[in-house]
């Protein structure tokens, strides 16, 4: 054919270009279309693939949000449905998954760490820093008290049975691997992670 041209050429349709397009070349007037465009405004939306957090089936979901990709633009999720491409659920969701939008926008949704002191009836907000400190402190004290390096027969067991850990379903293989390494290396045996699926 003798033509050395890339298939990936662009098909530019722009306001100034309409005057050279087929519309004008064939004798039709593009003026009304051009006038109309000036009245229009663009809006942005996003579709995001995610994993339902409820159970270990880990159904794929598509989350629809308004607001463009621009930095600082506030994203507002307005619809969630099963991911039609997902090999596990092919677009379907159970009643709990189908109600995920209410879960996202729930007024009682936990948005920050909270703490209820012994004997108190109310929860009080604390910072992430404080929360990490307290959890680490409690874990360390409990582990120091209850860690077993050997059993009655003297065999090495290195276990910590007074503490357990539960991790989430929407984890990648990599975060599952790290979670597992963390839990086992401090001796935790009571450990479930829904990322096992």
């Amino acid at each position, binding site marked *: *054919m003798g*033509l050395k*041209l*890339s*298939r*990936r*050429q*662009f*098909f*530019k*349709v*722009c*306001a100034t*270009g*309409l*005057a*050279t*397009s*087929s*519309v*004008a*070349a*064939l*004798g*039709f*007037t*593009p003026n*009304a*279309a051009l*006038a*109309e*465009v000036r009245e*229009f*405004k*663009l*809006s*942005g*939306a*996003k*579709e*995001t*693939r995610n994993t339902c957090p409820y159970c270990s089936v880990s159904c794929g979901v*598509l989350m629809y949000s308004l607001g*463009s*990709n621009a930095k600082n633009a506030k994203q507002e999720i307005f619809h969630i*449905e*099963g*991911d*039609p*491409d997902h*090999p*596990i*659920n*092919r*677009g*379907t969701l159970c009643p709990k998954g189908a109600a995920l939008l209410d879960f996202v926008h729930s007024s009682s949704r936990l948005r920050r760490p909270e703490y209820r002191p012994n004997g108190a009836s109310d929860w009080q907000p604390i910072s992430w820093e404080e929360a990490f400190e307290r959890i680490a402190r409690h874990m360390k004290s409990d582990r120091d008290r209850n860690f077993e390096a050997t059993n009655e027969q003297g065999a090495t067991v290195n276990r910590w049975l007074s503490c357990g850990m539960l991790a989430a379903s929407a984890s990648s293989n990599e975060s599952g691997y790290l979670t597992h390494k963390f839990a086992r290396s401090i001796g935790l045996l009571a450990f479930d992670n829904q990322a096992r699926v």
Partner: protein
Amino acid sequence: MPDSVLAGGVPSIPEFRPTRKSVFTDRAQRLRDLADGHAMQEYLLFASALARAQAAELEVYPDTPVPDPAQLEHCQQHGLPPLSIDSAQPAGWQQGLLRLLDALNQDALPPEAVRIANELRDEDNTALERDQEHMFAGAYAEIDSGRAPFIGAALQVHWVKMALRLGERGRSAGVDFGLCPVCGSPPVVSVVRSGGAEQGLRYLVCSLCASEWHVVRVKCTSCASTKNISYLFIEGSNDAVKAECCDECKTYRKILYLDKDNHMESIADDLATLALDMLVDQKGFRRVGPNLLLSPG
């Protein structure tokens, strides 16, 4: 609901939707419906008349040779589209073009269109083939924008005719996801289907032979990125047509959501939403899907 769902199985994704015999009739009807009160009314009616002429031409267009089973097998093995636009020079479409031009009602056309139609009638095959080569190479600016819709329409009839003869057998599984598995052309738009086994699935629609093939949602159909995909649409519209924009390669392709409007048709609804193109262009995204019934010039 399919039995496999009730039995606890997961239904497989239909990967391919062959082109339909009614493609031009449906397109003509949709263009006609869209034209009513539209800012581009005259052009949509012109495109509708052209699609109607294509439908009539498809009925009388001679059977062109298609690959035999051995050749189809060869294409399957090597991931080549069986009706590739890169193969030997197609024959017969030039006569088809003449019949298309004759089928158009001259009285309904502007004088410029009549002049271009007459010019095409007198054109020799070499010049027509040059236009065809430019079109298939994606060099849209090299073709006279007045001639392009006629050339494109004639080539569509030729390829739809061949694709119809092959049906399901026309698809070669190994073709790059961004090109038609039947003819290797770039897709015009994406369509998210509604209902049945294809509920919510996205298919790319071939700009030439109208075959459709499945590609997962939320993925750039140009560079395959799944990061930073956004969807732009005209505020206040029913957002049935959006521009799927990729921040990685800065391109976009329109995506039609049939659950918002089940009557939409790839080429017709693309032509009826050029305003979206103009606005998205201003945002710095470049369009990758050609529409053979319109040249941007």
